[in-house]
Protein backbone atom coordinates (compact mmCIF):
# COMPACT_ATOMS: atom_id res chain seq x y z
CA UNK A 1 0.00 0.00 0.00
CA UNK A 2 1.60 3.31 -0.99
CA UNK A 3 1.54 6.38 1.18
CA UNK A 4 -1.40 8.02 -0.60
CA UNK A 5 -3.55 4.92 -0.21
CA UNK A 6 -2.69 4.72 3.48
CA UNK A 7 -3.57 8.39 4.04
CA UNK A 8 -6.87 7.84 2.25
CA UNK A 9 -7.62 4.79 4.35
CA UNK A 10 -6.91 6.63 7.60
CA UNK A 11 -8.99 9.67 6.67
CA UNK A 12 -11.86 7.42 5.60
CA UNK A 13 -11.68 5.61 8.93
CA UNK A 14 -11.87 8.87 10.91
CA UNK A 15 -14.82 10.20 8.92
CA UNK A 16 -16.71 6.92 9.25
CA UNK A 17 -16.09 6.86 12.99
CA UNK A 18 -17.38 10.42 13.34
CA UNK A 19 -20.33 10.31 10.97
CA UNK A 20 -21.20 6.61 10.71
CA UNK A 21 -23.23 5.69 7.63
CA UNK A 22 -24.96 9.06 7.44
CA UNK A 23 -22.63 10.21 4.67
CA UNK A 24 -23.17 9.13 1.07
CA UNK A 25 -20.29 6.92 -0.19
CA UNK A 26 -19.71 9.12 -3.28
CA UNK A 27 -19.56 12.25 -1.10
CA UNK A 28 -17.12 10.47 1.25
CA UNK A 29 -14.82 9.48 -1.61
CA UNK A 30 -14.78 12.99 -3.05
CA UNK A 31 -13.91 14.50 0.39
CA UNK A 32 -11.10 11.99 0.90
CA UNK A 33 -9.69 12.62 -2.56
CA UNK A 34 -9.73 16.37 -1.95
CA UNK A 35 -8.01 16.18 1.43
CA UNK A 36 -5.38 13.71 0.22
CA UNK A 37 -4.48 15.82 -2.78
CA UNK A 38 -4.19 18.97 -0.67
CA UNK A 39 -2.07 17.12 1.88
CA UNK A 40 0.38 15.55 -0.51
CA UNK A 41 0.74 18.77 -2.52
CA UNK A 42 1.63 20.76 0.57
CA UNK A 43 4.47 18.37 1.52
CA UNK A 44 8.00 18.52 0.15
CA UNK A 45 9.55 15.24 -1.04
CA UNK A 46 11.69 15.13 2.14
CA UNK A 47 8.64 15.55 4.34
CA UNK A 48 6.92 12.76 2.46
CA UNK A 49 9.84 10.44 3.25
CA UNK A 50 9.67 11.40 6.93
CA UNK A 51 5.95 10.80 6.96
CA UNK A 52 6.47 7.37 5.44
CA UNK A 53 9.04 6.49 8.12
CA UNK A 54 6.70 7.61 10.88
CA UNK A 55 3.81 5.61 9.49
CA UNK A 56 6.06 2.56 9.10
CA UNK A 57 7.14 2.87 12.74
CA UNK A 58 3.55 2.97 13.87
CA UNK A 59 2.30 0.09 11.86
CA UNK A 60 4.90 -2.56 11.39
CA UNK A 61 8.21 -2.68 13.14
CA UNK A 62 9.21 -4.11 16.47
CA UNK A 63 12.77 -3.32 17.35
CA UNK A 64 15.34 -4.92 19.60
CA UNK A 65 18.91 -3.89 20.32
CA UNK A 66 21.62 -6.49 19.96
CA UNK A 67 24.90 -5.57 21.66
CA UNK A 68 28.13 -7.49 21.24
CA UNK A 69 30.87 -6.64 23.72
CA UNK A 70 34.30 -8.17 24.23
CA UNK A 71 37.73 -8.70 22.69
CA UNK A 72 37.94 -7.89 18.98
CA UNK A 73 38.61 -10.80 16.65
CA UNK A 74 38.16 -11.72 12.98
CA UNK A 75 34.66 -12.65 11.85
CA UNK A 76 32.45 -11.40 14.69
CA UNK A 77 30.23 -9.30 12.43
CA UNK A 78 30.01 -12.08 9.87
CA UNK A 79 28.90 -14.71 12.38
CA UNK A 80 26.35 -12.47 14.09
CA UNK A 81 24.80 -11.15 10.90
CA UNK A 82 24.66 -14.65 9.37
CA UNK A 83 22.45 -15.83 12.24
CA UNK A 84 20.33 -12.70 11.96
CA UNK A 85 19.82 -13.23 8.23
CA UNK A 86 18.89 -16.88 8.74
CA UNK A 87 16.39 -15.83 11.42
CA UNK A 88 14.89 -13.15 9.16
CA UNK A 89 15.80 -10.36 11.61
CA UNK A 90 16.34 -7.22 9.55
CA UNK A 91 19.21 -4.93 10.57
CA UNK A 92 17.91 -1.36 10.86
CA UNK A 93 21.00 0.28 12.30
CA UNK A 94 24.57 -0.61 13.02
CA UNK A 95 27.24 1.02 15.15
CA UNK A 96 30.69 -0.11 16.12
CA UNK A 97 32.94 1.42 18.71
CA UNK A 98 35.89 0.70 20.94
CA UNK A 99 34.88 1.46 24.53
CA UNK A 100 37.51 1.29 27.28
CA UNK A 101 39.61 -0.99 25.07
CA UNK A 102 36.70 -3.32 24.34
CA UNK A 103 35.01 -3.97 21.03
CA UNK A 104 31.34 -2.94 21.02
CA UNK A 105 29.01 -3.69 18.14
CA UNK A 106 25.46 -2.46 18.46
CA UNK A 107 22.76 -3.45 16.03
CA UNK A 108 19.16 -2.33 15.95
CA UNK A 109 17.15 -5.19 14.53
CA UNK A 110 13.56 -5.52 13.42
CA UNK A 111 12.21 -8.66 15.06
CA UNK A 112 8.64 -8.43 13.77
CA UNK A 113 9.23 -10.87 10.90
CA UNK A 114 11.57 -13.25 12.67
CA UNK A 115 11.19 -16.97 12.08
CA UNK A 116 12.50 -17.76 15.59
CA UNK A 117 11.57 -16.42 19.03
CA UNK A 118 13.69 -13.84 20.86
CA UNK A 119 14.74 -16.59 23.29
CA UNK A 120 15.89 -18.82 20.46
CA UNK A 121 17.84 -15.98 18.88
CA UNK A 122 19.49 -15.29 22.24
CA UNK A 123 20.47 -18.98 22.53
CA UNK A 124 22.07 -18.89 19.09
CA UNK A 125 23.93 -15.71 20.01
CA UNK A 126 25.05 -17.29 23.29
CA UNK A 127 26.81 -20.01 21.27
CA UNK A 128 28.69 -17.41 19.21
CA UNK A 129 29.49 -15.51 22.41
CA UNK A 130 30.95 -18.61 24.03
CA UNK A 131 33.01 -19.53 20.98
CA UNK A 132 34.43 -16.04 20.52
CA UNK A 133 34.70 -15.10 24.19
CA UNK A 134 32.18 -12.28 23.94
CA UNK A 135 29.00 -11.16 25.67
CA UNK A 136 25.95 -10.70 23.50
CA UNK A 137 22.80 -9.05 24.82
CA UNK A 138 19.47 -8.85 23.03
CA UNK A 139 17.01 -6.45 24.65
CA UNK A 140 13.67 -5.21 23.41
CA UNK A 141 13.98 -1.54 22.50
CA UNK A 142 11.31 -0.51 25.03
CA UNK A 143 13.84 -0.68 27.85
CA UNK A 144 16.04 1.94 26.18
CA UNK A 145 13.01 4.02 25.30
CA UNK A 146 11.68 3.97 28.85
CA UNK A 147 15.03 4.68 30.50
CA UNK A 148 16.26 7.35 28.12
CA UNK A 149 13.22 9.06 26.60
CA UNK A 150 10.39 10.95 28.23
Amino acid at each position, binding site marked *: MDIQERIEKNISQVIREELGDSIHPDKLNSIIKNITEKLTFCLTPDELVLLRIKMDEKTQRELA*VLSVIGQDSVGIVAEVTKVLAESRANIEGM*NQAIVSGYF*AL*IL*TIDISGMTVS*LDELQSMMDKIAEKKNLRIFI*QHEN*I*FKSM*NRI
Partner: protein
Amino acid sequence: MKYEVSEILETIKMNALENLDVRTVTLGISTLDCSDPDIIKCAKNIREKILKYGANIVPAAEKIARRYGVKIVNKRVSLTPLSLVFSRSYSVDEYVEAAKIIDKTASDIGIDFIGGYSALVHKGITPGEERFLESIPYVLSATEKLCSSVNVATTKAGINMDAVLKMGFIVKHTAELTADRQAIGCAKLVVFANIPEDNPFMAGALHGEGEGDCVLNVGVSGPGVVYRAVKALPVDGDFDILCETIKKTAFKITRMGELVGREVARELNVPFGILDLSLAPTPAIGDSVADILEAMGLESCGTHGTTAALALLNDAVKKGGAFASSYVGGLSGAFIPVSEDSTMARRAGEGKLTFDKLEAMTSVCSVGLDMIAIPGDTSAETIAAIIADEISIGVINSKTTAVRLLPVPGAKEGDEISLGGLLGKAKIIPVHKDSPSTFVRRGGRIPAPIQSLKN
Protein backbone atom coordinates in the same frame (compact mmCIF):
# COMPACT_ATOMS: atom_id res chain seq x y z
CA MET B 1 20.47 4.69 15.34
CA LYS B 2 17.46 5.63 17.46
CA TYR B 3 19.54 5.47 20.63
CA GLU B 4 23.01 6.74 21.37
CA VAL B 5 25.68 4.08 21.81
CA SER B 6 26.38 5.58 25.23
CA GLU B 7 22.73 5.11 26.27
CA ILE B 8 22.75 1.47 25.25
CA LEU B 9 26.08 0.74 26.91
CA GLU B 10 24.97 2.51 30.09
CA THR B 11 21.90 0.29 30.34
CA ILE B 12 23.95 -2.86 29.73
CA LYS B 13 26.51 -1.74 32.31
CA MET B 14 23.75 -1.15 34.88
CA ASN B 15 22.26 -4.62 34.28
CA ALA B 16 25.41 -6.65 33.86
CA LEU B 17 27.87 -4.99 36.21
CA GLU B 18 26.04 -2.80 38.70
CA ASN B 19 23.41 -5.24 39.99
CA LEU B 20 20.48 -3.27 38.60
CA ASP B 21 17.54 -5.58 38.79
CA VAL B 22 13.92 -5.75 39.70
CA ARG B 23 13.96 -6.91 43.30
CA THR B 24 10.46 -8.31 43.23
CA VAL B 25 7.23 -8.65 41.35
CA THR B 26 4.56 -9.26 43.95
CA LEU B 27 1.08 -10.44 43.08
CA GLY B 28 -1.46 -9.12 45.58
CA ILE B 29 -4.46 -11.40 45.88
CA SER B 30 -7.63 -10.71 47.86
CA THR B 31 -8.64 -13.69 49.96
CA LEU B 32 -11.69 -12.06 51.52
CA ASP B 33 -13.91 -14.38 49.49
CA CYS B 34 -12.07 -17.49 50.78
CA SER B 35 -13.44 -17.35 54.30
CA ASP B 36 -14.97 -20.48 55.83
CA PRO B 37 -15.69 -21.46 59.45
CA ASP B 38 -13.54 -24.54 58.84
CA ILE B 39 -10.01 -23.10 58.74
CA ILE B 40 -8.64 -25.98 56.66
CA LYS B 41 -11.39 -25.46 54.09
CA CYS B 42 -10.54 -21.74 54.16
CA ALA B 43 -6.85 -22.48 53.52
CA LYS B 44 -7.80 -24.73 50.61
CA ASN B 45 -9.95 -21.93 49.17
CA ILE B 46 -6.96 -19.63 49.48
CA ARG B 47 -4.81 -22.19 47.68
CA GLU B 48 -7.32 -22.31 44.81
CA LYS B 49 -7.38 -18.52 44.58
CA ILE B 50 -3.58 -18.32 44.51
CA LEU B 51 -3.44 -20.96 41.79
CA LYS B 52 -6.10 -19.11 39.80
CA TYR B 53 -4.11 -15.89 39.58
CA GLY B 54 -0.56 -16.82 40.41
CA ALA B 55 0.15 -20.22 38.83
CA ASN B 56 2.07 -18.56 36.01
CA ILE B 57 3.82 -15.76 37.86
CA VAL B 58 7.27 -17.38 37.65
CA PRO B 59 7.25 -18.21 33.90
CA ALA B 60 5.66 -14.82 33.14
CA ALA B 61 8.32 -12.94 35.11
CA GLU B 62 11.10 -14.98 33.53
CA LYS B 63 9.76 -14.32 30.05
CA ILE B 64 9.73 -10.57 30.59
CA ALA B 65 13.15 -10.70 32.27
CA ARG B 66 14.61 -12.34 29.18
CA ARG B 67 12.85 -9.92 26.84
CA TYR B 68 14.51 -6.93 28.47
CA GLY B 69 17.71 -8.51 29.75
CA VAL B 70 16.77 -7.51 33.30
CA LYS B 71 16.95 -9.90 36.23
CA ILE B 72 13.81 -10.26 38.36
CA VAL B 73 15.28 -11.54 41.62
CA ASN B 74 12.14 -12.56 43.51
CA LYS B 75 8.61 -13.51 42.59
CA ARG B 76 6.17 -13.18 45.47
CA VAL B 77 2.52 -13.22 46.46
CA SER B 78 0.82 -11.12 49.11
CA LEU B 79 -2.54 -11.95 50.65
CA THR B 80 -5.27 -10.12 52.54
CA PRO B 81 -4.28 -10.14 56.24
CA LEU B 82 -5.22 -13.66 57.24
CA SER B 83 -6.53 -12.65 60.66
CA LEU B 84 -9.42 -11.07 58.74
CA VAL B 85 -10.00 -14.15 56.62
CA PHE B 86 -9.77 -16.77 59.38
CA SER B 87 -13.19 -15.93 60.72
CA ARG B 88 -12.91 -17.04 64.37
CA SER B 89 -10.49 -18.44 67.00
CA TYR B 90 -8.76 -21.71 66.32
CA SER B 91 -6.20 -23.88 68.07
CA VAL B 92 -2.50 -23.36 67.36
CA ASP B 93 -2.40 -26.70 65.55
CA GLU B 94 -5.22 -25.61 63.27
CA TYR B 95 -3.49 -22.32 62.44
CA VAL B 96 -0.27 -24.20 61.69
CA GLU B 97 -2.04 -26.74 59.50
CA ALA B 98 -3.74 -23.98 57.48
CA ALA B 99 -0.45 -22.07 57.18
CA LYS B 100 1.29 -25.18 55.85
CA ILE B 101 -1.28 -25.48 53.05
CA ILE B 102 -0.60 -21.88 52.02
CA ASP B 103 3.16 -22.35 52.33
CA LYS B 104 3.04 -25.45 50.16
CA THR B 105 1.07 -23.54 47.54
CA ALA B 106 3.87 -20.97 47.44
CA SER B 107 6.38 -23.79 46.87
CA ASP B 108 4.19 -25.39 44.23
CA ILE B 109 4.08 -22.27 42.07
CA GLY B 110 7.80 -21.64 42.61
CA ILE B 111 7.65 -18.24 44.29
CA ASP B 112 10.21 -17.06 46.85
CA PHE B 113 7.95 -15.69 49.58
CA ILE B 114 4.28 -15.29 50.40
CA GLY B 115 3.10 -12.53 52.73
CA GLY B 116 -0.07 -11.98 54.65
CA TYR B 117 0.04 -13.98 57.86
CA SER B 118 -0.82 -10.60 59.27
CA ALA B 119 -3.02 -8.76 61.72
CA LEU B 120 -4.04 -5.12 62.06
CA VAL B 121 -4.29 -4.43 65.77
CA HIS B 122 -3.38 -0.75 65.99
CA LYS B 123 -6.38 0.16 68.08
CA GLY B 124 -7.44 -3.05 69.75
CA ILE B 125 -7.14 -6.81 69.67
CA THR B 126 -10.16 -9.08 69.25
CA PRO B 127 -10.15 -12.51 70.95
CA GLY B 128 -9.67 -14.12 67.53
CA GLU B 129 -6.72 -11.86 66.78
CA GLU B 130 -5.23 -12.67 70.16
CA ARG B 131 -5.13 -16.38 69.28
CA PHE B 132 -3.90 -15.55 65.80
CA LEU B 133 -1.00 -13.49 67.18
CA GLU B 134 -0.04 -16.28 69.55
CA SER B 135 0.13 -18.72 66.61
CA ILE B 136 2.70 -16.62 64.72
CA PRO B 137 5.84 -18.18 66.29
CA TYR B 138 4.56 -21.71 65.64
CA VAL B 139 3.53 -20.87 62.08
CA LEU B 140 6.86 -19.22 61.24
CA SER B 141 8.82 -22.14 62.63
CA ALA B 142 6.73 -24.69 60.69
CA THR B 143 6.78 -22.92 57.30
CA GLU B 144 9.48 -21.75 54.90
CA LYS B 145 8.06 -19.02 52.70
CA LEU B 146 5.15 -17.58 54.66
CA CYS B 147 5.80 -14.14 56.14
CA SER B 148 4.03 -12.33 58.93
CA SER B 149 3.42 -8.68 59.74
CA VAL B 150 1.52 -6.96 62.53
CA ASN B 151 0.43 -3.34 62.50
CA VAL B 152 0.48 -2.00 66.06
CA ALA B 153 0.01 1.72 65.46
CA THR B 154 -1.19 4.38 63.06
CA THR B 155 -0.93 8.14 63.15
CA LYS B 156 -4.74 8.23 63.29
CA ALA B 157 -5.20 5.64 66.04
CA GLY B 158 -2.09 6.09 68.16
CA ILE B 159 -0.01 3.21 69.51
CA ASN B 160 -1.59 0.07 70.91
CA MET B 161 0.94 -0.57 73.67
CA ASP B 162 -0.76 -3.85 74.63
CA ALA B 163 0.01 -5.08 71.11
CA VAL B 164 3.54 -3.68 71.30
CA LEU B 165 4.24 -5.61 74.51
CA LYS B 166 2.68 -8.73 73.06
CA MET B 167 4.91 -8.45 69.99
CA GLY B 168 7.98 -8.23 72.24
CA PHE B 169 7.11 -11.69 73.53
CA ILE B 170 6.11 -13.01 70.09
CA VAL B 171 9.43 -11.94 68.54
CA LYS B 172 11.27 -13.59 71.42
CA HIS B 173 9.18 -16.76 71.17
CA THR B 174 9.69 -16.94 67.38
CA ALA B 175 13.46 -16.72 67.92
CA GLU B 176 13.32 -19.55 70.45
CA LEU B 177 11.27 -21.81 68.19
CA THR B 178 13.75 -21.28 65.33
CA ALA B 179 16.86 -21.27 67.53
CA ASP B 180 18.33 -24.15 65.54
CA ARG B 181 18.24 -21.96 62.41
CA GLN B 182 19.70 -18.78 63.95
CA ALA B 183 16.27 -17.32 64.67
CA ILE B 184 15.33 -17.22 61.00
CA GLY B 185 11.65 -17.09 61.93
CA CYS B 186 12.23 -13.51 63.07
CA ALA B 187 13.45 -12.57 59.58
CA LYS B 188 9.90 -13.34 58.41
CA LEU B 189 8.17 -11.20 61.05
CA VAL B 190 7.79 -7.41 60.99
CA VAL B 191 6.04 -5.09 63.41
CA PHE B 192 4.67 -1.96 61.73
CA ALA B 193 3.31 1.50 62.27
CA ASN B 194 1.22 2.86 59.38
CA ILE B 195 1.53 -0.34 57.37
CA PRO B 196 1.05 0.22 53.62
CA GLU B 197 -1.60 -1.83 51.83
CA ASP B 198 0.38 -2.32 48.64
CA ASN B 199 3.95 -2.97 49.74
CA PRO B 200 5.66 -5.53 47.48
CA PHE B 201 8.61 -6.08 49.83
CA MET B 202 8.88 -8.86 52.38
CA ALA B 203 8.40 -9.63 55.12
CA GLY B 204 5.76 -6.90 55.33
CA ALA B 205 3.84 -7.41 52.09
CA LEU B 206 0.10 -7.76 52.40
CA HIS B 207 -2.87 -7.11 50.14
CA GLY B 208 -4.94 -4.39 51.78
CA GLU B 209 -8.69 -4.47 52.24
CA GLY B 210 -9.05 -1.48 49.93
CA GLU B 211 -7.38 -3.29 47.04
CA GLY B 212 -9.09 -5.08 44.17
CA ASP B 213 -9.24 -8.82 43.60
CA CYS B 214 -5.72 -9.08 42.20
CA VAL B 215 -2.97 -6.62 41.36
CA LEU B 216 0.69 -6.73 40.39
CA ASN B 217 3.08 -4.54 42.38
CA VAL B 218 6.77 -4.14 41.65
CA GLY B 219 9.79 -3.24 43.77
CA VAL B 220 13.06 -2.11 42.20
CA SER B 221 16.58 -2.43 43.53
CA GLY B 222 19.55 -0.41 42.33
CA PRO B 223 21.89 0.76 45.13
CA GLY B 224 24.83 -0.45 42.99
CA VAL B 225 23.87 1.86 40.15
CA VAL B 226 23.45 4.87 42.43
CA TYR B 227 26.74 4.05 44.18
CA ARG B 228 28.71 4.03 40.92
CA ALA B 229 27.07 7.25 39.76
CA VAL B 230 27.97 8.97 43.05
CA LYS B 231 31.44 7.45 43.07
CA ALA B 232 32.11 8.87 39.59
CA LEU B 233 31.50 12.44 40.81
CA PRO B 234 34.41 14.68 41.80
CA VAL B 235 34.86 14.52 45.59
CA ASP B 236 34.55 18.29 45.83
CA GLY B 237 31.36 18.42 43.76
CA ASP B 238 28.68 20.34 45.65
CA PHE B 239 25.34 19.01 46.92
CA ASP B 240 23.56 20.36 43.87
CA ILE B 241 25.50 17.98 41.60
CA LEU B 242 25.17 15.14 44.10
CA CYS B 243 21.38 15.41 44.36
CA GLU B 244 20.92 15.87 40.61
CA THR B 245 23.01 12.77 39.87
CA ILE B 246 21.00 10.64 42.28
CA LYS B 247 17.71 11.96 40.91
CA LYS B 248 18.64 11.18 37.32
CA THR B 249 19.83 7.71 38.23
CA ALA B 250 16.70 7.01 40.29
CA PHE B 251 14.60 8.12 37.33
CA LYS B 252 16.19 5.52 35.06
CA ILE B 253 15.97 2.74 37.64
CA THR B 254 12.30 3.51 38.24
CA ARG B 255 11.40 3.66 34.56
CA MET B 256 12.95 0.25 34.05
CA GLY B 257 11.02 -1.15 37.02
CA GLU B 258 7.75 0.32 35.83
CA LEU B 259 8.19 -1.10 32.34
CA VAL B 260 8.96 -4.57 33.67
CA GLY B 261 6.10 -4.43 36.20
CA ARG B 262 3.55 -3.40 33.60
CA GLU B 263 4.71 -6.09 31.19
CA VAL B 264 4.51 -8.84 33.82
CA ALA B 265 1.03 -7.58 34.80
CA ARG B 266 -0.04 -7.72 31.16
CA GLU B 267 1.39 -11.20 30.79
CA LEU B 268 -0.67 -12.36 33.80
CA ASN B 269 -3.69 -10.39 32.65
CA VAL B 270 -4.04 -8.51 35.95
CA PRO B 271 -3.94 -4.75 36.61
CA PHE B 272 -0.65 -3.06 37.40
CA GLY B 273 -0.80 -1.66 40.92
CA ILE B 274 2.15 0.37 42.12
CA LEU B 275 5.87 0.70 41.85
CA ASP B 276 7.79 0.82 45.11
CA LEU B 277 10.84 2.93 44.38
CA SER B 278 12.75 1.88 47.48
CA LEU B 279 16.48 1.46 47.11
CA ALA B 280 16.71 -2.14 48.32
CA PRO B 281 20.23 -3.42 48.95
CA THR B 282 21.36 -7.03 48.60
CA PRO B 283 24.29 -8.74 50.33
CA ALA B 284 26.17 -8.73 46.98
CA ILE B 285 29.34 -6.67 47.04
CA GLY B 286 28.66 -3.26 45.48
CA ASP B 287 24.90 -3.34 46.02
CA SER B 288 24.90 -1.50 49.32
CA VAL B 289 23.11 1.63 50.56
CA ALA B 290 25.94 2.14 53.08
CA ASP B 291 28.40 2.23 50.17
CA ILE B 292 26.46 5.15 48.68
CA LEU B 293 26.64 7.08 51.97
CA GLU B 294 30.37 6.44 52.20
CA ALA B 295 30.85 7.45 48.55
CA MET B 296 29.30 10.81 49.46
CA GLY B 297 32.29 11.41 51.73
CA LEU B 298 31.71 9.68 55.06
CA GLU B 299 34.65 7.66 56.33
CA SER B 300 32.23 5.04 57.57
CA CYS B 301 28.46 4.59 57.56
CA GLY B 302 27.38 5.35 61.11
CA THR B 303 29.62 8.32 61.76
CA HIS B 304 28.24 11.85 62.27
CA GLY B 305 26.67 13.05 59.03
CA THR B 306 25.17 9.66 58.21
CA THR B 307 21.59 10.75 58.93
CA ALA B 308 21.97 13.83 56.72
CA ALA B 309 23.50 11.78 53.91
CA LEU B 310 20.68 9.25 54.12
CA ALA B 311 18.03 12.00 54.18
CA LEU B 312 19.54 13.52 51.06
CA LEU B 313 19.67 10.14 49.33
CA ASN B 314 16.11 9.24 50.27
CA ASP B 315 14.72 12.56 49.09
CA ALA B 316 16.58 12.55 45.77
CA VAL B 317 15.50 8.97 45.05
CA LYS B 318 11.87 9.90 45.69
CA LYS B 319 12.05 13.01 43.50
CA GLY B 320 13.64 11.15 40.58
CA GLY B 321 11.40 8.13 41.01
CA ALA B 322 8.10 9.94 41.49
CA PHE B 323 8.45 11.59 38.10
CA ALA B 324 9.29 8.27 36.43
CA SER B 325 6.33 6.24 37.64
CA SER B 326 2.60 6.74 37.23
CA TYR B 327 1.72 5.03 40.50
CA VAL B 328 4.26 5.15 43.30
CA GLY B 329 3.32 3.25 46.44
CA GLY B 330 4.42 0.75 49.04
CA LEU B 331 7.30 1.92 51.20
CA SER B 332 9.21 3.98 48.64
CA GLY B 333 12.37 5.10 50.38
CA ALA B 334 15.86 3.78 51.00
CA PHE B 335 16.08 0.56 53.04
CA ILE B 336 18.68 -0.01 55.72
CA PRO B 337 18.37 -3.74 56.52
CA VAL B 338 21.62 -4.41 58.33
CA SER B 339 22.29 -8.07 57.50
CA GLU B 340 21.13 -7.62 53.91
CA ASP B 341 23.59 -4.79 53.21
CA SER B 342 27.17 -6.06 53.32
CA THR B 343 28.82 -2.72 54.18
CA MET B 344 26.17 -1.81 56.74
CA ALA B 345 26.61 -5.23 58.38
CA ARG B 346 30.39 -4.73 58.45
CA ARG B 347 30.14 -1.27 60.02
CA ALA B 348 27.68 -2.53 62.62
CA GLY B 349 30.05 -5.41 63.39
CA GLU B 350 32.93 -2.95 63.79
CA GLY B 351 30.88 -0.96 66.28
CA LYS B 352 30.86 2.10 64.00
CA LEU B 353 27.17 1.86 63.23
CA THR B 354 25.33 1.59 66.53
CA PHE B 355 21.79 0.64 67.36
CA ASP B 356 20.94 4.22 68.35
CA LYS B 357 22.34 5.61 65.11
CA LEU B 358 20.27 3.12 63.13
CA GLU B 359 17.19 4.35 64.97
CA ALA B 360 18.02 7.94 64.10
CA MET B 361 18.50 6.98 60.45
CA THR B 362 15.04 5.44 60.28
CA SER B 363 13.48 8.84 60.92
CA VAL B 364 14.56 9.97 57.45
CA CYS B 365 14.10 6.85 55.35
CA SER B 366 11.99 3.77 55.00
CA VAL B 367 11.48 1.51 56.66
CA GLY B 368 12.88 0.95 60.13
CA LEU B 369 15.09 -1.10 62.41
CA ASP B 370 15.52 -3.90 59.97
CA MET B 371 17.35 -7.22 60.10
CA ILE B 372 19.36 -6.40 63.18
CA ALA B 373 20.77 -9.31 65.17
CA ILE B 374 20.78 -8.65 68.91
CA PRO B 375 21.90 -10.71 71.93
CA GLY B 376 19.75 -13.73 72.72
CA ASP B 377 19.33 -12.68 76.34
CA THR B 378 17.54 -9.44 75.37
CA SER B 379 14.27 -9.43 77.31
CA ALA B 380 10.85 -9.36 75.67
CA GLU B 381 10.20 -6.04 77.46
CA THR B 382 13.33 -4.49 75.93
CA ILE B 383 12.26 -5.70 72.47
CA ALA B 384 8.82 -4.17 73.11
CA ALA B 385 10.46 -0.88 74.12
CA ILE B 386 12.58 -0.90 70.94
CA ILE B 387 9.37 -1.45 68.97
CA ALA B 388 7.67 1.40 70.86
CA ASP B 389 10.54 3.80 70.08
CA GLU B 390 10.59 2.97 66.41
CA ILE B 391 6.83 2.96 66.02
CA SER B 392 6.68 6.41 67.69
CA ILE B 393 8.91 7.81 64.96
CA GLY B 394 6.42 6.58 62.38
CA VAL B 395 3.33 7.76 64.21
CA ILE B 396 4.62 11.26 64.95
CA ASN B 397 6.04 11.76 61.45
CA SER B 398 3.05 10.23 59.61
CA LYS B 399 5.23 7.67 57.92
CA THR B 400 5.71 3.93 57.88
CA THR B 401 8.22 2.51 60.31
CA ALA B 402 8.85 -1.08 61.25
CA VAL B 403 10.95 -3.39 63.38
CA ARG B 404 12.48 -6.71 62.34
CA LEU B 405 14.87 -7.91 65.03
CA LEU B 406 16.62 -11.23 65.52
CA PRO B 407 17.32 -11.93 69.21
CA VAL B 408 19.40 -15.00 68.40
CA PRO B 409 19.18 -17.51 71.28
CA GLY B 410 22.55 -18.19 72.87
CA ALA B 411 24.30 -15.54 70.77
CA LYS B 412 26.32 -12.74 72.36
CA GLU B 413 27.65 -9.40 71.15
CA GLY B 414 30.21 -9.97 68.37
CA ASP B 415 28.97 -13.44 67.35
CA GLU B 416 28.16 -13.73 63.67
CA ILE B 417 25.01 -15.24 62.19
CA SER B 418 24.51 -16.21 58.57
CA LEU B 419 20.99 -16.50 57.18
CA GLY B 420 21.83 -17.12 53.54
CA GLY B 421 20.46 -15.70 50.30
CA LEU B 422 19.10 -12.18 50.29
CA LEU B 423 18.92 -12.20 54.10
CA GLY B 424 22.73 -12.07 54.35
CA LYS B 425 24.80 -12.21 57.52
CA ALA B 426 25.53 -9.95 60.47
CA LYS B 427 27.25 -9.72 63.83
CA ILE B 428 25.25 -9.40 67.02
CA ILE B 429 25.20 -5.76 68.16
CA PRO B 430 24.47 -4.62 71.70
CA VAL B 431 21.30 -2.95 72.96
CA HIS B 432 20.85 -0.89 76.13
CA LYS B 433 20.76 -3.03 79.25
CA ASP B 434 18.71 -0.87 81.64
CA SER B 435 15.15 -2.14 81.91
CA PRO B 436 12.14 -0.34 80.34
CA SER B 437 9.84 -3.00 81.82
CA THR B 438 7.69 -0.74 84.02
CA PHE B 439 7.09 1.66 81.14
CA VAL B 440 6.05 -0.92 78.54
CA ARG B 441 3.88 -2.81 81.03
CA ARG B 442 1.63 0.17 81.80
CA GLY B 443 -0.96 -1.18 79.35
CA GLY B 444 -3.45 0.58 77.10
CA ARG B 445 -2.84 2.95 74.22
CA ILE B 446 -0.68 5.98 73.59
CA PRO B 447 -3.18 8.43 72.08
CA ALA B 448 -3.03 9.60 68.49
CA PRO B 449 -0.74 12.63 68.19
CA ILE B 450 -2.03 16.12 67.56
CA GLN B 451 -0.71 15.83 63.98
CA SER B 452 -3.51 13.36 63.27
CA LEU B 453 -6.26 15.93 63.87
CA LYS B 454 -6.42 17.17 60.32
CA ASN B 455 -10.13 17.19 59.58
